[in-house]
């Protein structure tokens, strides 16, 4: 990705460094890299549109997503129902619009919950090292050994679906990724002189972790969080597709793909349209994550 972002060739006199080039503000540099590439810009626009759609769903949606109309079932696209209607006559477009809310709520809550727990564990592991590090990392290895969806399936299956359970299950499944990332970042930040200086000044372990290590590892963590949202939304869609995620009649994209599967011949859009919504959301967040990464630290490419 984004390899045209390498530093532009320096003018010859810069090598002598007699005249230091004027430092642009960090934000302007960030914006230049982030918005300088079409894919990142597209991703950003998609994310903004999706967030606005979720907030203003009641204003945008042409119909109530739960109201059924048994006289208009499994219809194809028309001027009244742009994406047609489902097996009990609900407007597909309205359900997709309201589904944005569900996906984003679950995506943000699960990622933030896992980030808080995972980062705390990662910080502790990196800072104390020794057996604390070994124990935390082996537990994370064990969690990692189960394919994300399988672990989530086990939890959601046992606890029995619903938005809360889905957030818990997906958040739980995302902990090891966040923990490992935080741990790796903290270990590298720890090498810096200012951490040593803090220690020399007699700062407590927790103070060093929270005031020095964490803020300095923050930008790459933002990338992890942004990328995590896409993964969690895919996971939610998967669970709802299998019927152990968000429970009907609440509109969930994964559930809609599943419902539509039986009526592919009558109206394929029932399945296809919500799938495209999932892809747009995941694509948007992935690209924003890629963009932030390249803007903060291109060296992380391939690591995150």
């Amino acid at each position, binding site marked *: 990705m984004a390899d045209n972002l390498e530093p532009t060739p320096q003018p010859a006199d810069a090598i002598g460094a007699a005249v230091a080039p004027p430092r642009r503000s960090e934000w302007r540099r960030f914006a230049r890299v982030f918005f300088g590439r079409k894919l990142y810009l597209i991703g950003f626009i998609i994310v903004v549109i999706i967030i606005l759609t979720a907030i203003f769903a009641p204003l945008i949606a042409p119909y109530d997503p739960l109201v059924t109309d048994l006289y208009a079932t499994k219809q194809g696209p028309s001027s009244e129902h742009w994406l047609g209607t489902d097996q009990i006559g609900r407007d597909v477009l309205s359900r997709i619009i309201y589904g944005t809310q569900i996906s984003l709520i679950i995506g943000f809550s699960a990622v933030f919950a896992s980030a808080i727990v995972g980062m705390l564990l990662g910080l502790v592991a990196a800072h104390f090292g020794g057996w604390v590090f070994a124990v935390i990392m082996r537990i994370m290895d064990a969690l990692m050994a189960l*394919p994300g969806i*399988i672990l989530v399936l086990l939890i959601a299956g*046992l606890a029995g679906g619903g938005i809360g359970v889905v957030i818990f299950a997906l958040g739980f499944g995302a902990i090891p990724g966040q923990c490992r990332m935080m741990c790796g970042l903290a270990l590298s930040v720890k090498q810096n002189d200012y951490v040593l200086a803090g220690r020399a000044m007699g700062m407590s372990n927790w103070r060093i972790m929270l005031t020095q290590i964490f803020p300095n590892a923050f930008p790459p963590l933002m990338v992890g969080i942004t990328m995590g949202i896409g993964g969690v939304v895919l996971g939610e869609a998967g669970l709802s597709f299998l019927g152990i995620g968000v429970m009907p009649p609440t509109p969930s994209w994964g559930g809609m*793909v599943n419902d539509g599967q039986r009526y592919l011949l009558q109206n394929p859009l029932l399945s*296809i349209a919500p799938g495209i919504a999932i892809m747009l959301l995941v694509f948007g967040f992935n690209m924003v994550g890629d963009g932030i990464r390249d803007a903060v630290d291109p060296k992380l490419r391939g690591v995150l």
Partner: protein
Amino acid sequence: MTAYIIRRVIIGIIVLLLVTMLVFLLVRLLPGDPLMVYMGQFSVGGSGTTRITPEEYQFLYHQYGLDRSLPVQYIDWLGKIFHGDLGKSVTVGQDIGELIAERMPRTAYIGLITFVIGAVGGTFVGIICALRRGSWMDNTLTTLANIGMTIPVFWLGILLMYLLSYKLGWLPTHGWTHPLDNFGKHISQIIMPVLAMAVGSIAGLARLVRSCMLEVMRADYVRTAWAKGLQERVIVVRHQIKNAMIPVVTALGGAIGMILGGSVFIETVFGIPGMGRLMTTAIFDYDYQIVQAGVLLFGAIIIFSNLIVDIAWGWLDPRIRLA
């Protein structure tokens, strides 16, 4: 190298034990009575597949040893697993070990084909993109890979089914035939599942291979190789690809997890009686012994493949086995 392998094996065993502990605790601590879970229903006289009275409940509670402490129960459970006793399915009434022996080969078979296609395809696309970087082909393929990573596997399966089965009528919509029974039918039935799962692997790997190759191209030893006047082919094959493959080997381990996870969806969409299908139906039948066994099996497979990856790493990069 031997010491390194032994150390990795020991860590693998520890992680495997942790996985069994995790699965045991999850089944026990999440809402839901473990006895009910084992008996296949949610509450006494409830709506599950079997019904029991409160007296029977008390008897079974003792019978299953649920009145003992958790660590004792765990050790007991673990002991049974090591003796190959995975329990009996409450819904199918069949020994779970036998069920797995019947179902797993199908999942493994489809998974292996997907893995080979994904690994070869992903590496190939990634290398092409890196070598022709910035060209229209690179841009197209990279964009496609970015999109490919976002496609939900079950949705792609349904889309393929709609196009290739319903619209064009080229392939059967679902089902499974043993390759020795009817090879032609067998092939026509596995094309869509394999294709649907391979797209994600190819896309993910292609992205990784490409960025690893680009990283390596900037390395000092590659510049030296050019300066020495080596042929481009030699530089690409011997210096770049070989070194770029090191992180890719790790990703291959991850791809196995992704394929096993994907099998749950793809077997549901295409009605393939494999491990993934077994687990999803078991969840709906509250047959948690099967779910538990399946999760453990998948965990063990992934730990084993990670072990292979670690050993391969040590072999590819001597610095690692000394660390």
